[in-house]
């Protein structure tokens, strides 16, 4: 074209102008626009303006594009790193307002998750379900954690391998916290070998490859990329959406590390950052906690149980107190000996000895607040030796007349009140047969009789004929009465084990010699003693004594007074046995 031009130019200026105008005519507009484009390209300020115009649009439109984000991340990271290295202050200043809330939020989230896990742990520590799982763990020899995982896990990505497609070498590996991880290098190799084996064995198209392996509840999902594959070991049944996540991971890794992967020759260190992408695939989903509503009912049941236990415990405590009060009452009761007292699941059991005359133990229940139906009692009869019970027993045997009461002290049965001679005599005969009665003291019951008899004897005076030891006519009646009273006294003495002494003292008047008076007075006393002796018996002692004229009733020469001095005076004294007169 240039040569042509030169040749054309050699032929004259006119022709050249023509050509120029022709060129201007034909390509002029394009030339101008080319020049404009050129100048715009050269104008850096203008280009910057253009870029400023389109860049926000690009950022807005492609913000969701993973490739775009991945491409932007490294330079931004680098820029931030450089900025911080150079001077951390601007970034610190910029971040300061958000740091506080972020930290608070993180702390709150941490606490919430801690409480949540605590709740879960507690629930699993105490629930029936966990008890069942513990039994299963014991039975199958698996750990409790494994059982819990198996029962509550919907699915979990336990391990993710990034494997070099050609050599099967492990490039990166991420695993869930408590997953069982074998030697990942060898697993990676073997997985590749198996993948190849399947592909080779079944002659599938080279574009197809093994996508998943499944053994029991464990499956391996394989997602191939041009240079590397991602293999995820999953426990449980994962949703198909997980496949998309694995694909994204493969794409992301190829985007980030495509060059490294393509020329991989055994050095895995440049791929360290791929681990983050792999970790983002470690997903787990647990069964929706269907126990939530049940948790409430569990709480209600637990509360009811607790309240019931409290009530039951309270009632049992109250029953115990009542029972103790009942036992105290029984122990205080004469004629009852508690030998054993036990509390059973339902009610009480008691056994012991009981005097038939003691209070009925049943009658004490109400006062103590114990229900009669709750008590099984076994009482063996016996004779109690408490004084009260001996007295009661004696009362049933002797049946004392009204007004006579029995009491026992140191084994001695005493009577009080007025009883007939006949009854006392019978009582004395029977008393030794009453268990617990050692001896019998009837004096109390006979005190009245004794007083009466003694009064009939005491200070009686019998008058005698002058100079003789014979009674004045008319004194026989008095002697007879005296004799009767002495006989009564003797009977009382016999029953009440008493001894009386009756002193019979003879007297004379002052006439005559004192010597003869002495013998006369003695004779008079002897005469009365002789008369009384048959009535006196063993319990009454008779003593006769003559006093002569030494103790005149009255000193006088008057015949009537002299007659009063010719006498025998009688006195009576209780000399042995309880008198009981005072009572």
């Amino acid at each position, binding site marked *: 074209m240039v040569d042509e031009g030169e040749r054309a130019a050699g032929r004259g200026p006119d022709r050249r102008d023509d050509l120029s105008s022709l060129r201007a005519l034909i390509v002029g507009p394009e030339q101008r626009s080319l020049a404009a484009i050129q100048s715009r390209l050269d104008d850096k300020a203008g280009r910057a303006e253009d870029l400023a115009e389109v860049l926000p649009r690009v950022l807005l439109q492609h913000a969701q594009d993973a490739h775009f984000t991945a491409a932007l991340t490294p330079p931004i990271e680098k820029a931030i790193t450089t900025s911080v290295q150079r001077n951390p202050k601007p970034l610190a200043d910029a971040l300061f307002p958000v740091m506080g809330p972020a930290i608070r939020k993180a702390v709150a989230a941490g606490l919430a998750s801690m409480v949540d896990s605590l709740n879960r742990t507690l629930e699993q520590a105490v629930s029936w379900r966990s008890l069942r799982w513990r039994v299963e763990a014991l039975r199958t020899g698996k750990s409790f954690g494994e059982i819990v995982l198996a029962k509550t896990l919907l699915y979990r990505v336990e391990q993710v391998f990034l494997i*070099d*497609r*050609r*050599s*099967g*070498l*492990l490039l990166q590996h991420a695993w869930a916290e408590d997953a069982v991880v*074998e*030697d990942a*290098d*060898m*697993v990676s*190799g*073997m997985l590749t*070998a*198996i993948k*190849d*084996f399947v*592909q*080779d064995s079944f002659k599938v198209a080279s574009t197809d490859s093994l996508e998943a392996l499944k053994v029991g509840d464990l499956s391996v999902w394989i997602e191939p990329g041009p240079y590397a594959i991602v293999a995820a070991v999953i426990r449980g049944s994962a949703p198909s959406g997980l496949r998309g996540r694995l694909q994204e991971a493969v794409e992301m890794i190829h985007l980030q590390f495509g060059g490294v992967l393509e020329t991989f*020759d*055994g*050095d*895995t*260190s440049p791929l360290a950052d791929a681990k983050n992408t792999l970790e983002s695939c470690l997903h787990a989903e647990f069964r929706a906690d269907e126990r939530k509503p049940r948790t409430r009912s569990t709480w209600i049941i637990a509360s009811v149980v607790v309240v019931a236990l409290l009530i039951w415990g309270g009632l049992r405590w109250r029953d115990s107190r009542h029972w103790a009060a009942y036992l105290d009452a029984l122990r205080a009761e004469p004629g009852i000996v508690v030998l054993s007292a036990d509390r059973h699941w339902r009610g009480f059991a008691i056994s012991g000895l009981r005097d038939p005359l003691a209070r009925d133990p049943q009658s004490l229940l109400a006062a103590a607040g114990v229900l009669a139906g709750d008590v099984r009692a076994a009482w063996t009869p016996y004779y109690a030796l408490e004084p009260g019970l001996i007295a009661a027993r004696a009362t049933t045997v002797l049946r004392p007349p009204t007004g006579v009461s029995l009491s026992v002290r140191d084994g001695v049965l005493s009577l009080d009140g007025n009883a007939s001679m006949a009854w006392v005599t019978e009582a004395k005969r029977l008393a030794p047969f009453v268990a617990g009665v050692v001896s019998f003291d009837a004096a109390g019951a006979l005190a009245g009789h004794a007083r009466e008899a003694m009064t009939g004897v005491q200070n009686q005076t019998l008058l005698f004929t002058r100079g003789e030891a014979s009674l004045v006519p008319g004194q026989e009646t008095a002697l007879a009465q005296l004799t009767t009273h002495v006989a009564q006294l003797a009977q009382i003495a016999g029953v009440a084990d008493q001894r009386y002494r009756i002193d019979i003292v003879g007297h004379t008047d002052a006439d005559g010699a004192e010597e003869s008076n002495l013998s006369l007075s003695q004779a008079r006393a002897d005469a009365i003693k002789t008369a009384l002796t048959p009535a006196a018996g063993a319990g009454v002692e008779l003593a006769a004594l003559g006093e002569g004229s030494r103790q005149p009733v009255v000193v006088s020469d008057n015949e009537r007074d002299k007659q009063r001095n010719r006498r025998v005076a009688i006195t009576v004294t209780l000399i042995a046995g309880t008198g009981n007169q005072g009572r």
Partner: protein
Amino acid sequence: MIQKKICMLGGFAVGKTSLVARYVTSLFSEKYLTTVGVKIDKKQVAVDGRDVTLMLWDIYGQDDFQDVQTSQLRGMSGYLLVVDGTRRATLETARQVQAKAAAAVGEVPFILLLNKSDLSAQWEIDEPAFFKLAEQGWHVIRTSAKTGEGVEEAFMALTRAMLVRA
């Protein structure tokens, strides 16, 4: 960390598996060899101050190497070629294997292991044959599964060759 895939190749019953059994970390049992056709072990070596993890693909030996899947050789950085010194035929197999491996993955370092050196009295492979191999530039090491002779040396030599090449 450096990792390398290496293969153990050779004819049937030349003693590949038992040769390395004592020197590698195993996770899989030998039954994989007969089922999947390969068993993978791991061997850690330190060469010139560098730690290298060798992933050792023990490939099921067949005298007719045509059946071996070349896909298993893919990505290997080197291999051990095992020959039973008491059986001349295994050397021929090794030649075929080497050719096939070179075709599949290109020229990578390998070492010929003349196994069963403890039975040298019964050897069928004679000195001239060795020289011929050496002339071809083949690195030959005598090994014995029984005494362990040459095994560590073979791993070290192969690793060194692979690293030099890389």
